[in-house]
């Protein structure tokens, strides 16, 4: 007796807009935050948004090999993991030398 829901479809555009919103938030984090770790979080969020878009295309768009989007997403995740490890090690190394990780205080090329 329960009515079936009227809104019973997810168009491609909504998935892409979700990815765009996540990308925008990540961009804002990467551009505006003081702490280098928050900047890194923004970069990770942007990579995630890119993955959402890639998987949306792999699910919806005409392609001879539709799973290639997922393969690409896995490569993106791999690169993100490597990038996070190196960037956090950089943050720790910078903190050892400068005792700060605020990117607006790390403004000298030599110290």
């Amino acid at each position, binding site marked *: *007796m*329960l009515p*079936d*829901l009227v809104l019973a479809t997810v168009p491609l555009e909504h998935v892409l807009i979700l990815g765009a919103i996540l990308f925008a938030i990540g961009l804002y984090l990467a551009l505006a935050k003081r702490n280098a770790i928050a900047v890194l979080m923004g970069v990770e969020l942007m990579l995630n948004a890119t993955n959402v878009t890639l998987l949306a295309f792999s699910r919806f768009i005409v392609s001879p090999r539709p799973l290639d989007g997922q393969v690409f997403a896995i490569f993106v995740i791999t690169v993100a993991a490597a990038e996070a490890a190196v960037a956090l090690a950089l943050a720790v190394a910078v903190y050892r030398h400068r005792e700060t990780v605020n990117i607006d205080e790390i403004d000298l090329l030599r110290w």
Partner: protein
Amino acid sequence: MSLLLSIISHHWYDVRDLSNITSEIRSLLGDAGAPGWTLYVVTALLGTLGIIAFIGGVAIINIWIERRVVGRMQSRLGPNRLGPFGLLQPVADAIKLMQKEVLQPRVADGLVFSLAPIAFTVPGIIVLAVVPWGPNMALADLNVGVLYILAMSSLGALAVFIGGYGSNNKYALFGSMRVIAMLVTYEIPSVLSLLGLVLFSGTMNLSDMVLFQQKYWIPLLLVQPLPFIIYFIASSAELNRTPADLAEAESEIAGGYHVEYSGMKFGLFYAAELINAVAISAIIATVFLGGWWFYRLDEIVPGWIIFIGKIYAVYFLFVWTRGTLPRFRIDQLLAFAWKWMTPMAFLNIVLVAAEILIWDETGASAGIVLPIYAVVNTAFAALLIFGWVKLMSPKFSRFPDRLRMYSRIDVPSLPANAMMSAVPETGEPDGSGGHLGGAESPRVLAEGPTA
């Protein structure tokens, strides 16, 4: 007998397969004209309720089992006062924990502090969603079940870490750091050991892995003994159980990450450890021991009863190691993972891949191939373990070559020491090396044994 079976089969009271209840309810709902998605929701809710009921019962009973069995192993009685055989002791413990005041340090991070016990409990429960309890009794029959298990068991570390961080206590932080170090280390061998099984059965779906073992009539434990040992050790390190309970070592860091927790928040940590142990036991029972299948027994006994029996068999192994083994040092534990278990797991994967290739290329029948592989793999595991022990372990000697601990410690000069050492050297009771000038003499006394 067969008449009776034909009467009860596929009705809701056919307890051999508990999914009959949900399918009955679904057909009732379908007759009533409910839309398709409500059937999903109702089935999911029923399955979740069943799992949570099982978890609740297990968390109460396992406290009693654990304390009784460990007590018996250590020549104690264990709880035996409340109720028959002390069965009501966990209930009393739970009531006591609920009555206690929930303390929170003033400097603690409130949100993080309260979130940690919950975030620690949830992964242990939702791991059980992919475990098949019977031939068609998996709540979520995921195609990537093994990966799901690994992903969920890696989530608990973050919970423990934020719990230790949020309580703003140095012992809690020590415990959290140890958890992270252990988890990062032991994640690798546990993933690699399960990968060998995935290679062998050719699927990551847990139901299909059980079906593989049923089809070839052999539990994967016999074909893959080395991954069983590796996964057992690695998961007992991930579970913080006693050979590896460094994160909460009472005698070193006063309870570790839950040192600041009290009342039911502590109770949740305590229950979550038991739940995680049961979840890991369920995974081992599914993947290594064949889940609900046990030769011809599953035609007579309901599969989920066999499965629970297997869970408790594995759980007994965990209790056994807890009751008998002393705690490792943290560097020993980490070195053990990097130097022993990870290389062994890699070698095992190479061997399994070669075996699968041979099996595929020759097309030999499983009845010939699998027993041969079982023997070969067992011999390989034994050889590897003994060879590694010979190769990697330091030479055992009962006494250390040189006396440590004596000469290195600077003993502050006590007057009595000074007088005692001054007596034989100077030969006169009140010489220049008396109680004021005796700064050197304790040194002499302290270095005595090495000379």
